[in-house]
């Protein structure tokens, strides 16, 4: 059984149909990359997994259970999400971690920082005085505080330079190897090739390829070939 399964999912908004009859499975291990051009519906697919979006048609399953039957607040703690831009709030790094898990002790917060490869001395740092790359890792640590079963990462390196970008990719690989699966959204093919164990190519709201990265280049779908070739 997959970690997430989308069964005939459609999403319509006032801007039109964002996803069309999507059926796909996200495995319970490794790094699954959702790749596709901007506006293809990748982020919408990811947001369906923690119910920041809901399907207009079809259903989304988490460990075989329809997400609409799961308490959304509990689901969001089990499926932690990191966004495009690091979003830290006022106060210290400790205050930020406490938003996810109020009242925990410093050891718990320091352990979460450690998993994001940040020292415990960061706890007292004012959140608005740290660099973009560090801020994004604090966001990862904040998500890890609740010990999620999966990490949903929505273009988390979009606002980062190359070094912090590669550091965050390494971190994602490390989590996957540790047994915390990662679902990573990107439109960058080089990043996809570095990270993906499993791949879903989303174009114009439809899944055009699902499988290994190695088989992508020989895939016959002209739209997939155009996307892969055009971005090279």
């Amino acid at each position, binding site marked *: 059984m997959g970690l997430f399964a989308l069964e005939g999912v459609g999403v319509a908004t006032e801007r039109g149909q964002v996803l069309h009859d999507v059926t796909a499975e996200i495995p319970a291990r490794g790094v699954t990359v959702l790749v596709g051009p901007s506006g293809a519906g990748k982020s919408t697919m990811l947001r369906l997994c923690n119910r920041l979006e809901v399907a207009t048609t079809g259903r989304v399953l988490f460990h075989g259970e329809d997400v609409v039957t799961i308490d959304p*607040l509990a689901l969001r703690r089990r499926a932690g999400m990191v966004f495009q831009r690091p979003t830290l709030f006022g106060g210290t790094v400790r205050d930020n971690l406490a938003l996810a898990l109020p009242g925990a002790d410093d050891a718990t917060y320091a352990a979460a920082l450690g998993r994001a490869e940040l020292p415990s001395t960061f706890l007292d740092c004012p959140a608005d005085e740290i660099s973009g790359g560090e801020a994004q890792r604090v966001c990862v640590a904040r998500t890890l505080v609740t010990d999620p079963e999966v990490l949903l990462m929505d273009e988390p390196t979009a606002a980062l330079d190359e070094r912090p970008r590669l550091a965050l990719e390494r971190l994602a690989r490390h989590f996957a190897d540790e047994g915390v699966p990662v679902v990573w959204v990107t439109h960058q093919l080089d990043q996809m090739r570095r990270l993906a164990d499993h791949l879903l190519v989303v174009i114009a709201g439809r899944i055009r390829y699902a499988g290994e990265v190695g088989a992508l280049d020989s895939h016959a779908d002209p739209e997939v070939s155009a996307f892969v070739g055009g971005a090279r």
Partner: protein
Amino acid sequence: MIDTDVTGAGVALSLLLVAVAIALSWWQRLGLQRPLAWASVRAVVQLVVVGTALTIVIDEGSPPALWWTWVVVMVLFAAETVHRRAPEVPSARWLALSAYGAASAVTLGVLFGLGVFPLEGRTLVPLSGMMVGNSMNATVLVARRIVEELRDKRPEVEARLALGQPSREAARPYVRAALRTALTPQIETTRAVGLVFLPGAMTGLILAGVEPVDAVLVQVVVMYLVLGAVATTTVTVAVGLARRLFTSDHRLVRLPRPADA
């Protein structure tokens, strides 16, 4: 009592001040001459109509049903005005109606229930007018501000929701900021009263020949009435609106940006 009757000639002479405003608009090429003239004429007509109607409503023999009808019409009109001034706010009309309902219950309940004023048309109608009129700006401001805050800070709000915060908790910092913005001018006005300006009710009473100390007592009550009304309407609107902007499964609804005028 000092004779403060303003004659027709006096009103006509005061039109000179409107002429000054129009002349300044013409000189600075503001293009506001027509709106200024129209607003001045319209205000006279409205006040004459209201004055005539008020004479009937607050007459000693008038039935209480008439006083309360006046209050209800005022509240309905205010709710409609809030809806018109804040078209981007979902359900603004209903939120304003419940806000004025709550503010009426609280403020009129204290003033008349505790016997601060006797319940008569002469007191109920003008005090309700002060309550509704003075809290309208703050009501519009808080509603618009909450929608703007949640729309512009959607990434922050969704980051909070994604951590498993309930919508009410995720919205709290933005609702609080909007409430502070809406309430602060009223607190500043209350603080500066008497030093920087003389408020309308007191000025009117003094012009009508009432002893300044008596006028002050009435003004203090009116001031507290306005403060209580502004706090009640803004908090009611803020709490109601924050609920409407999230779904029952803790998602922030889409809040499209209004087109530029």
